[in-house]
């Protein structure tokens, strides 16, 4: 591997080492932690967050940010639940309409950001308010879902040895991560995303379709968060307008821990998956510990974020000093 490639892989390698280290340390500390079952549960418990984080990774790679993802999860989950309770639409249709909604909201946000150079922070903040307001408008109460097709989908899982299983949510997560990695690395769209994040003006001068790419990126994020909402609905078998509150922060934290720079142009979808796993391990460890109060989760995530950011900064400075 060349020095360049090595340098590029460094942050995600560090994240990978930390992930393995944390899992092993927790495994040594707690009985029955280092099992396939606990490991697979990491995927199913944070599946919706993972799906959201994949979309967020693309937005952050362009140097933008999407604050609307959390309320999008709430909005699409309540929308799907409402459609299933109040209409006779087929279950799959009822679950697809919110996905289209996610695409549409993403397209509007992307258009405003790309066409008028409006700050993504504000536009997606407006998206956050809009989706949460709409969700509460649909129903303020939690809606239970009880439909045969839906129940089949929610309870489906591939059995693995050691009482471990791979439910629908985990399968969706793994497929989305695989597709995300493929899109980021192997397509022209993916290359454009990295180019825009590196320097939007250079990308424009190179003749890359900056506007179209930006709109597509926000559409992708909208779709991913709507899909995250669908996964969440499957996970809880109900729709709730306030679910996903603060999820945008967890998603951003996972992406940053995964080694993606918030300034854009640098990072990977795989890193975000590792970030999700790290957040999951912290939560599981605190559950295993039993006596630690839940607020330690947030403090530990904060400390971890700080460590990663400082490490990233030091790597960046070292890279600058070596003159490349």
């Amino acid at each position, binding site marked *: 591997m060349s020095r360049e490639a090595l340098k590029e892989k460094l942050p995600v390698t560090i994240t990978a080492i930390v992930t393995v280290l944390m899992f092993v340390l927790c495994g040594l500390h707690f009985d029955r932690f280092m099992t396939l079952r606990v490991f697979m549960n990491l995927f199913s418990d944070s599946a919706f967050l993972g799906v959201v984080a994949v979309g967020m990774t693309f937005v952050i790679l362009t140097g933008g940010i999407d604050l609307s993802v959390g309320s999008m999860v709430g909005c699409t989950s309540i929308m799907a639940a409402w459609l299933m309770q109040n209409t006779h639409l087929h279950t799959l249709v009822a679950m697809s309409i919110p996905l289209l909604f996610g695409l549409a909201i993403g397209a509007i946000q992307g258009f405003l950001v790309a066409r008028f150079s409006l700050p993504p922070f504000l536009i997606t*903040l407006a998206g956050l308010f*809009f989706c949460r307001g709409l969700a509460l408008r649909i129903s*303020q109460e939690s809606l239970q879902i009880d439909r045969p097709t839906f129940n089949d989908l929610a309870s489906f899982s591939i059995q693995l040895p050691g009482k471990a299983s791979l439910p629908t949510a985990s399968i969706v997560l793994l497929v989305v991560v695989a597709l995300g990695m493929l899109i980021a690395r192997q397509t022209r769209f993916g290359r454009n995303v990295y180019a825009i994040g590196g320097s939007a003006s250079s990308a424009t001068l190179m003749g890359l379709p900056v506007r179209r790419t930006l709109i597509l990126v926000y559409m992708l994020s909208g779709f991913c968060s709507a899909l995250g909402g669908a996964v969440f609905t499957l996970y809880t078998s109900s729709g709730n307008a306030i679910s996903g509150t603060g999820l945008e922060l967890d998603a951003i934290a996972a992406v940053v821990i995964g080694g993606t720079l918030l300034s854009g142009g640098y990072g990977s979808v795989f890193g975000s998956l590792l970030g999700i796993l790290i957040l999951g391990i912290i939560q599981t460890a605190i559950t295993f510990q039993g006596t630690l*109060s839940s607020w330690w989760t*947030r403090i530990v*995530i904060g400390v971890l974020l700080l460590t990663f*950011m400082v490490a990233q900064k030091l790597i960046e400075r070292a890279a600058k000093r070596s003159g490349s």
Partner: protein
Amino acid sequence: MRSQRGPMPIWFWALAFLAGVLLFNLIFTPGFFHVEVREGRFFGSLVDILNRGAPVALLSLGMTLVIATGGIDLSVGAVMAIGGTVAACLIAHPPDSPIGGLDLHGSTPMIICAALFAALLCGLLNGLLVSFLELQPIIATLLLMVAGRGIAQLLADGKIVTFQAKGFERIATGTTTMLPNPIWIAFVCFALFGLVTRRTSLGLFIEATGSNPIAARVAGVNARGIKITVYALCAVMSGLAGIIGAADIQAADANNAGLYFELDAILAVSVGGTSLMGGRYSLIGSIVGAYLMQTLTTTILTRGVSPEVTLVLKAVVVVAVCLLQATSFRQLFAKKVPA
């Protein structure tokens, strides 16, 4: 500094929207402008707007300066929770709180100072991360936004701390010369901020740091010192807002105090015409922006429309004001793109 095209101040659109909402109420909401004197103080929707909007107005003052340096502070809501919790713990001394043993003999000024000091520490942390570690402000402050509520819960041992203290409650519920105290607090802070930034060179340095950090450094502006100062000021304002919030409900709720206030404050600032990219700012604009949001909320509540519509309406207002500012300042944005 950039020259302005035409005589229109940057907070024009915010004020126009505010006037529009007030005009709407003048025509369609009977009694909206009615103000009466009861129990030696003013009562009415307008007084209520000024009172309820005070915490976000305080936040938006600090946030304006932070944004003017090209930064952002996402932690204000969490710092509010910390400020309120510290004050509540020092009054009520909950048994399992790590700071419950600290006894200030119930002295209200001391308790306020302690809570503001806790907030100041948060601000210094933000400032150090942004200036010395050169972290992007959005992540540097994301840190406290995530961890801050955890810290507040740690201080309160995960409980909602309730208290009874006449002197402390007066901060939010008392009145001075016919008006509720929060209005006066917001006004005094606004005046102080205006004086300090416009009568000294601090405001100029802040704008210089925000519009072109490299040029500012070459010109001898201590950008690091300026940044630490604005984050510290912003955190102290958040602490103050947290104290008002806690005094108002005689309790500190680490989970919900100041929830989403960071978004409201950022919204108020940008609606008020201050660009999120830094540089030129307007404290008046931010205050107008903060009270525009509060007026919208109060209007919806008094008209009996369900409160969740406020969120949708806020979204529409943000996009509208952003667009209006973007088209009138299109050239400004074009200049921003580095060649």
